[in-house]
C-alpha cells in the first residue's frame, strides 16, 4: 500500500470515527434533551468532504423502516454511504443491509439489455423491439393481461402502472407482492378504523414503557427501530420488552418476557388479554364509551371485512371463555403470563406499543388477529397518546407509499378509493380526463388468483390470464406452493411472462421477455415508509448498459399502444394518457428514453397528478418540491396559514391531527376516528374466536413449518446475495431444528434434512441452537435462497378477507438424508 493510499485510508478512518461519534451523540441527545454535543473536528463536515465525492440524500432501498442515507458518488459510481444524521427515522444509523446498500448496484450479472426467449435460448433485442412485442401482445388480448409488482415500485412507478391498467386497459388485473405481506394489516386497519395505515409513528418507540412484539423480530428485520429501544435501555431507562413468538430470536435475547405460543393461537392470547381486562374491570370505560363500538363475525368461518354490530354485553360473553387457563391450553403460554399481559394493559400509568409485521399478517386469520390486537389497545385505552400504539411495520420500502396509498391492488384505486364504487371510479375518470364509464367496476385478480389463472391452460376454465408483466419483485421464489402457482408456466407455451429486473432471478428463469431495469439511485424515486412518511430522491448515477426505469418502460409501452390506435391510451380529448408538458406548455415525448431525463421531471409530473387523489381519505401530500427539501414528511401533510407544510405524527388524536373534529367548545376532540366504518367517529372493537388453522401437524406431517427472513438478506436475496459480505455471512438457506427433535430424528448439526409437505419437498442443512431457536415440534426455514426454494413446500391457503397467504404455518415431516455413497 503506497503512502498516499495509507494517508487516504487513515483519513477515511478518522472521518468514519468522527461520523460514528457524532451519530452516537445525535441519538443520545435526541432522547435525553442533552444538546451539549462535543466539539467535533471542524474539518469533518456533514456529510464528510472527501476528494471529489458528491453527496445527495436517498432512502435506503431495503425494508419499510425508511432510513435515510447520504450517498457519496464519484465518477458516476457510488463510493460511500452514511446514515443521514438529519433524518428523524434513523438519526444517522443504519443496519448491516444499509451498510452495504451501495454495493447492490455493482453485483455481477446485472441485466443490461432486453432479452427475448427463442427456441435456442435468449436473444438480445433492442428496446424498440421489446416495447413492440409487449404492445402487440396486450392489444391482441387486453383483458387477459396483468401486471404484478410490489412495494419496491416507487410511488410514481406504481401510479403509472395503476393508471395504465385501470385507466387505460380497464381490466384491473394489477396486484403487488404486498398482497403476500401487508394485505392483512390493510384489512385490519380498515375493519377497525375505516381507513388504512397506522395511527401512530416511530416516536411511540421513544415514549413507550412497554413494547410488545407480536410474532415480530425487529432486532433482525427492522434493526434501526430496535436500536431506539436498545439505546434507551443503554441509558438506564426502564423499558419492558415482551416477545410473543413461535421461536426464539435475537429480539428474544433482549426481552424481559418471552411468551412462546403454538402457531395460530395468538388469536386466543388476544382474546385472553381482553377477558382479563373485563374480569379485572380494568378496561378503559371512558375511552370505550366515547370512542368505540363492538363488532363480530356472524359466521366466523365466512368472515367479512365489516362484520356485524355487537354490544358490550355480547362481547363480554364472547371473550369470557378465554380464561388464562383456557388460553394456556390452546396456546401453550402459561396462564400467569396471560394474567401479566392483562394487568399491564389494565394500567393507566404506562404506555404500551405493539409491533408486528409478517407474523400476524401472513396468517390464515390475518385480518382477524390484526383486528384483535387493535381491539386490545382500544379496550384498554392504550391508543393515540405517544407511546400507546398498535403499529404494523412493513417489509418493503414503499409497501405503504405505493401498494397501499397509490392502491396498486386489484380492488383499489388511488388514495383509498375502491374499484367497485361508481363515485370513486368517476373521481379517477375526472382526474385522468377519461370518458365516463371507461373504468371497469369488477375488481381484478388478487395475487394467488392471478398466478393460478396464469398457470391454468388458456382453454380450461380459470385460465384467463395469459400474459403477466412482473416488475420489481420475484414471484418465482416468493409465491407460496410454487409447484402450483408458478412452475406450470414452463409447459404452457401460450402463456407469456415479461420480467423487468436488475439481476437474473428465479422468475426470469421462466421469462419469455426480460427487461433490464434501473435500480435505486440510478433513477428518480419516491417511497412511503411504515410510519406514513413520504420520501424523495434524485437519480445520482446512470444505470448500466441499456437498463432503464420501470416507469419509462410502462409509459413507452402505453405510447406504442397509443400509436397503434388503442383507444384506452387516449383520454376523452384524444390525448395520450401520460401526456407531459414542459414549462412552456409543449408536450415532451417522454416515451423516448433520451427525453425521459430531459426538460421535465417525470416523477414530479406523475406525483403532482397523484397528489390530487390524496385528500379524500385525509392522506394529504405536499407538493413534490417540499419532499425535495425534507427528509420525508408524514401524511396528512397540511398547509399552514403562513404557507408552510405541517406533517402529522399521530392520527385521530386531537393534539396533533388537524382533521380531528371539534367539540362543543370549539376545541379539538381528544380522539376522532373520522373515517369510522360506522360513520359515528368511533373505532371498532372486535371479537373473533380461536379456530384451528386449515392445516395442522398430524401423524404423517408432524411438524409445524414457519418461513421468514434473516438479518443479512432482504426479501428473496436478489440484491443482498450479490453483496459478497452479506452472501458469505449467510450463503445458503438452512433449517432450524430444536435440539431434542434433531436428536430424536438422528439429525446432526449441518447434516442434510429432507423437509416434506403435501405439496413438495426440499433438502436443507440442519442448524441446531443457532440464531433462531424453534420449540419442539416446529422448524424454521428462511426464504432468501433462490437455490433452495422453500416455497415448493408452503401452503397457498389465504386469509379469507385479505387474500394473504399463510407462510408461517403448514404441516411437514423431517427426516435425515443419508450422505453415504455406499
Amino acid at each position, binding site marked *: 500500500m503506497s503512502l498516499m493510499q495509507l494517508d487516504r485510508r487513515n483519513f477515511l*478512518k478518522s*472521518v468514519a470515527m468522527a461520523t460514528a461519534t457524532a451519530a452516537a451523540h445525535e441519538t443520545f441527545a435526541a432522547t435525553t434533551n442533552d444538546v451539549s454535543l462535543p466539539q467535533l473536528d471542524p474539518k469533518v463536515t456533514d456529510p464528510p468532504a472527501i476528494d471529489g465525492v458528491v453527496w445527495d440524500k436517498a432512502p435506503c432501498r431495503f425494508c419499510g423502516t425508511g432510513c435515510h442515507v447520504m450517498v457519496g458518488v464519484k465518477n458516476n459510481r457510488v463510493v460511500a454511504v*452514511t446514515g443521514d444524521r438529519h433524518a428523524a427515522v434513523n438519526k444517522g*444509523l443504519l443496519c*448491516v443491509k444499509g451498510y452495504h446498500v451501495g454495493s447492490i448496484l*455493482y453485483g455481477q450479472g446485472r441485466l443490461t439489455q432486453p432479452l427475448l426467449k427463442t427456441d435456442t*435460448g435468449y436473444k438480445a433485442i433492442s428496446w424498440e423491439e421489446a416495447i413492440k412485442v409487449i404492445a402487440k401482445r396486450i392489444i391482441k388480448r387486453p383483458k387477459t393481461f396483468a401486471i404484478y409488482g410490489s412495494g419496491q415500485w416507487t410511488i410514481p412507478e406504481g401510479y403509472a402502472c395503476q393508471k395504465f391498467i385501470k385507466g387505460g386497459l380497464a381490466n384491473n388485473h394489477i396486484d403487488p407482492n404486498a398482497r403476500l405481506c401487508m394485505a392483512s394489516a390493510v384489512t385490519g386497519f380498515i375493519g377497525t378504523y375505516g381507513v388504512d395505515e397506522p395511527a401512530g409513528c416511530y416516536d411511540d418507540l421513544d415514549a413507550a414503557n412497554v413494547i410488545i412484539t407480536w410474532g415480530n423480530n425487529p432486532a433482525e428485520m427492522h434493526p434501526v427501530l430496535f436500536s431506539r429501544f*436498545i439505546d434507551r435501555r443503554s441509558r438506564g431507562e426502564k423499558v419492558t420488552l415482551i416477545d410473543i413468538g413461535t421461536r426464539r430470536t435475537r429480539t428474544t435475547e433482549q426481552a424481559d418476557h418471552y411468551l412462546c405460543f403454538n402457531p395460530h393461537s395468538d388469536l386466543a392470547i388476544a382474546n385472553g388479554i381482553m377477558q382479563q381486562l373485563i374480569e379485572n374491570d380494568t378496561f378503559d370505560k371512558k375511552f370505550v364509551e366515547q370512542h368505540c363500538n363492538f363488532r363480530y363475525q356472524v359466521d366466523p368461518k365466512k368472515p367479512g371485512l365489516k362484520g356485524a354490530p355487537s354490544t358490550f354485553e355480547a362481547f363480554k360473553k364472547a371473550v369470557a371463555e378465554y380464561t388464562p387457563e383456557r388460553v394456556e391450553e390452546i396456546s401453550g403460554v402459561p396462564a400467569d403470563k396471560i394474567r401479566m399481559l392483562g394487568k399491564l394493559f389494565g394500567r393507566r400509568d404506562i404506555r404500551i406499543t405493539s409491533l408486528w409485521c409478517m407474523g400476524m399478517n401472513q396468517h390464515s386469520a390475518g385480518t382477524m388477529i390484526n383486528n384483535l390486537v387493535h381491539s386490545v389497545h382500544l379496550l384498554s385505552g392504550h391508543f393515540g397518546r405517544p407511546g400507546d400504539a398498535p403499529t404494523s411495520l412493513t417489509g418493503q420500502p414503499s409497501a405503504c407509499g405505493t401498494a397501499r396509498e397509490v392502491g396498486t391492488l386489484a380492488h383499489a384505486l388511488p388514495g383509498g378509493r375502491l374499484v367497485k364504487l361508481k363515485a370513486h371510479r368517476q373521481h379517477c375518470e375526472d382526474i385522468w380526463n377519461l370518458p365516463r364509464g371507461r373504468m371497469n367496476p369488477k375488481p381484478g385478480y388478487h395475487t394467488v388468483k392471478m398466478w393460478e389463472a396464469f398457470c391454468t391452460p388458456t382453454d380450461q376454465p380459470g385460465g384467463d390470464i395469459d400474459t403477466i408483466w412482473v416488475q420489481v419483485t420475484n414471484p418465482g421464489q416468493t409465491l407460496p406452493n410454487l409447484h402450483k402457482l408458478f412452475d406450470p408456466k414452463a409447459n404452457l407455451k401460450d402463456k407469456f411472462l415479461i420480467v423487468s429486473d436488475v439481476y437474473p432471478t428465479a422468475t426470469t428463469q421462466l421469462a419469455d421477455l426480460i427487461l433490464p431495469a434501473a435500480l435505486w439511485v440510478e433513477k428518480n424515486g419516491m417511497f412511503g415508509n411504515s410510519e406514513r412518511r413520504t420520501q424523495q430522491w434524485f437519480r445520482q448515477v446512470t444505470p448500466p448498459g441499456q437498463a432503464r426505469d420501470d416507469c419509462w418502460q410502462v409509459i413507452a409501452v402505453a405510447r406504442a399502444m397509443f400509436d397503434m390506435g388503442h383507444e384506452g391510451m387516449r383520454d376523452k380529448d384524444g390525448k395520450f394518457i401520460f401526456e407531459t408538458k414542459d414549462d412552456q406548455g409543449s408536450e415532451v415525448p417522454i416515451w423516448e428514453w433520451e427525453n425521459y431525463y430531459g426538460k421535465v421531471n417525470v416523477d414530479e409530473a406523475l406525483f403532482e397528478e397523484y397528489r390530487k387523489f390524496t385528500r379524500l381519505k385525509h392522506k394529504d401530500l405536499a407538493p413534490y418540491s417540499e419532499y425535495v427539501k425534507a427528509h420525508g414528511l408524514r401524511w396528512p401533510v397540511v398547509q399552514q396559514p403562513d404557507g408552510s407544510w405541517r406533517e402529522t405524527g399521530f392520527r385521530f388524536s386531537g393534539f396533533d391531527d388537524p382533521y380531528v373534529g371539534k367539540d362543543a367548545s370549539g376545541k379539538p376532540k381528544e380522539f376522532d376516528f373520522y373515517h369510522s366504518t360506522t360513520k359515528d367517529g368511533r373505532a371498532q372493537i372486535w371479537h373473533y374466536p380461536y379456530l384451528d388453522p386449515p392445516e395442522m401437524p398430524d401423524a404423517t406431517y408432524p411438524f409445524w413449518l414457519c418461513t421468514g427472513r434473516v438479518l443479512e438478506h432482504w426479501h428473496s*436475496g436478489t440484491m443482498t446475495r450479490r453483496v459478497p459480505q452479506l452472501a458469505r455471512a449467510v450463503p445458503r438457506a438452512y433449517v432450524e431444528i430444536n435440539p431434542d427433535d434433531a436428536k430424536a430424528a438422528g439429525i446432526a448439526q449441518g447434516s442434510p434434512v429432507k423437509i416434506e409437505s403435501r405439496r413438495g419437498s426440499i433438502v436443507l442443512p440442519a442448524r441446531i441452537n443457532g440464531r433462531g431457536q424453534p420449540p419442539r415440534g416446529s422448524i424454521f426455514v428462511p426464504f432468501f435462497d433462490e437455490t433452495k426454494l422453500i416455497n415448493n413446500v408452503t401452503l397457498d391457503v389465504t386469509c379469507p378477507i385479505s387474500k394473504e397467504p399463510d407462510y408461517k404455518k403448514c404441516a411437514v415431516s423431517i427426516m435425515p438424508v443419508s450422505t453415504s455413497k455406499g
Partner: protein
Amino acid sequence: MPISGLILTLSSNSEAAQTALDKCHADPQVQVGEFVGPRRCPITLDTNNPEEDKVSWQRLQDDPGIDFVDVVCVYFDEDEKAEDSTVQVPASHSGTMALAD
C-alpha cells in the same frame, strides 16, 4: 475494502462488556472511540478483504458482551472491482438463461 464507522451498544453485564471491549482494543482492525453515555461506543473497522470483514462483523454481532451493532457509514475502496457473484442459477424451474447465438 470498506472502512466503516459503527456504534456498539455494550451489554449491561459489565464483565461481559469489558471482555468485549478488551477484544476490540486488542484487534488491530478495530479502532475504539470515546464512549457516548454508559454503553454506546463508536468504533471503526478496517479490514483487508471481504472474508476478514465478514469474520469481524460476525464476531461483533455474536459477542455476548455486545447487545447491538449500529452502522453509521461505510466507504468503499474506489478501485475495488465488483466481485464474483456467489449466486448460482437455481435449478428448481425448468427454464434456462443461456443466450442464443
